[in-house]
């Protein structure tokens, strides 16, 4: 028997082993994500194709409404690509928020019966949305091929923007997940936030139509920086980055993640008693 692992359980002292534990439970992380992906498409006739259909249809609707009816300017890029380049990170963000905020409640049976670092639950929810994001990415490739659109060197910066989208999703998701355990109000609030966010974020239009003097204020929406970044990287050409706004967005995202983890860790102790 090995005795090297001595553990002390005491009020307010789970800190020391926490990050070590997350590493030890990395397989659970993988299994939870795997379960959620597997379950999502069980007993469906067309399975994973749903992950393609949903963003595709939304893109079509947006292209028709904003591009054809509202006639918002698109620059030289094809409107569907303009929309889809923003649709991708937005869908990822929106799915993450919805999944993340419900993840703890959905797994309440685990939380009240088994020990593991709780941070795994919301993070694996984000990972599941990330897989969907990658699948929808295929549509973007398809669109590019269809319109014969070749992106420039800027496409190489895409991983950076993805990382920011990921950080933003996890940061906001952690806040919502934690609050949802305590206040079920968020269960009703999140779908509304997501719907509202779609219209205030530059998904169906380019953020350049926002007047210059409001740009900085507009960047307080963390998704503005991310979406602009995606457009800049994918479409290139005319779309430009508004640097002060970008810096504001990125630092806001980082603050959200750090405070999200802090808040989550603080409330985590009482999850099993409250949930």
């Amino acid at each position, binding site marked *: 028997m090995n005795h090297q692992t*001595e*553990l*002390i359980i*005491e009020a307010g002292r789970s800190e020391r082993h926490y990050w070590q534990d997350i590493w030890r439970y990395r397989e659970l992380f993988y299994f939870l994500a795997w379960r959620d992906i597997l379950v999502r498409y069980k007993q469906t006739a067309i399975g994973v194709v749903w992950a393609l259909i949903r963003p595709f249809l939304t893109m079509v609707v947006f292209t028709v409404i904003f591009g054809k009816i509202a006639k918002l300017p698109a620059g030289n890029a094809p409107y569907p690509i303009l929309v889809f380049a923003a649709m991708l990170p937005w869908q990822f963000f929106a799915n993450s928020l919805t999944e993340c905020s419900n993840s703890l409640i959905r797994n309440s049976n685990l939380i009240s019966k088994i020990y593991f670092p709780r941070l795994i639950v919301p993070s694996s929810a984000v990972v599941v949305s990330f897989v969907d994001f990658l699948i929808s990415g295929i549509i973007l490739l398809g669109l590019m091929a269809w319109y014969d659109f070749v992106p420039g060197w800027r496409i190489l910066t895409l991983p950076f923007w993805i990382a920011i989208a990921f950080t933003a999703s996890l940061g906001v998701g952690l806040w919502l997940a934690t609050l949802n355990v305590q206040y079920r109000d968020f269960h009703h609030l999140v779908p509304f936030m997501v719907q509202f966010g779609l219209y205030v974020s530059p998904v169906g239009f380019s953020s350049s139509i926002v007047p210059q003097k409001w740009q900085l204020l507009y960047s307080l929406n963390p998704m503005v920086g991310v979406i602009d970044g995606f457009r800049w990287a994918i479409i290139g050409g005319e779309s430009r980055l508004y640097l002060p706004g970008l810096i504001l967005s990125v630092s806001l995202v980082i603050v959200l993640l750090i405070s999200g983890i802090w808040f989550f860790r603080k409330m985590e102790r009482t999850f*099993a008693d409250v949930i």
Partner: protein
Amino acid sequence: MSNPVIKVENLGKKYIICHQDTAGYSTLRDTIVNGTRSMAHAITNPKSVRKTNTEEFWALKNLNFEIKQGDRLGIIGRNGAGKSTLLKILSRITEPTTGRIKLKGRIASLLEVGTGFHPELSGRENIFLNGAILGMSKIEIKQKFDEIVDFSEVEKFLDTPVKRYSSGMYVRLAFAVAAHLEPEILIVDEVLAVGDTAFQQKCLGKMQEVGRNGRTVIFVSHNMATVKQLCNKACLLANGTLVGQGTPAAMIASYMENTLGRATDDDKKNYQHIKGDRRAEIELITINDRDRGEVIIPIFGKVKIALKYKIIESIDRLEFFVLFHSLATGEIISSCWQKDTQEYIDPMLPVETINLEFINHLLPGKYVISAGIYKQNKCVDRVEYAEAFTVEPAFADGQKYDRRGGKVRFQGNWYS
């Protein structure tokens, strides 16, 4: 090897009970409203003590004990004695309020069979998922996969979603995964109360094997016979404090005396309801029309047990049963089941009484009865260790009892 693997010092857990908030979780509005109100209150008359509708409740208090390596410790106590809270703290699901626990080695806890099983996933997928949740690595699960499948006896349905499993298959698969965990400390809560008897015995055997391999087992159960069979030490909890620790036999005896003491001393009977959906409840049990004091019965004497029960939700087709345990061990010596008579009760009044009469075949000693209600194989209520009686060392015809062997006496006819 006798160094303690678990050392519990001064452990306590406090819960705050809200009397108004029945939902258990608060809504944002409540928090804002209450917060503003109390702030306003504090400003307008700062000296008055705020009236609170919360109450502190210590689920555990000042708990001190040690467990040595290879011990199989049984934790017993009434409902609400703090057993589950203790297990939750030991398995790190919730934090203690005071005190500390020192643990050596990897812990796995099994507070529920099939935690994390997903109904949509197949048996095979669930083995991996559940294994990972219980703390096994993927390689470990792969190695033990065949063994797990073997133990669970469900290989034919491995690729069927578990939502189509019968409850027996579900439980067997779940226990099979759990049984193949190899932690240094295993924490188990009541999981043996599932499956058929044969499978229960198989599980019990597996748990004993775990203990024999030098690993430590902490086991909570209401079933005294199982505790006695499985454990080599026991702790008795009452109202969140440790009342005693020692051999299982001694602790079980002390627990049974305690339980009965509570049940017979109080004005209102305080039975321990351990199971059932409580659509009907057993309120009072009388033996030979006596509901307090000692009931003494001779061998072959007539016994009448009356169960007074209350209907909570309208229900029909009730079947009653009574179990007879030995007071010393908790072992079930005999039982009476109404369903054997193919009869059932359709209650008409909110409170009714059903009587059971039989000739006592038990040999002298102290006995405890448990009783319960079933409706078509579904448990409605079960009160554990409710009342006691003593069989005196004499026969109903006055003849003295002369220490024969056995536990029961048959009344046979001798002829040639």
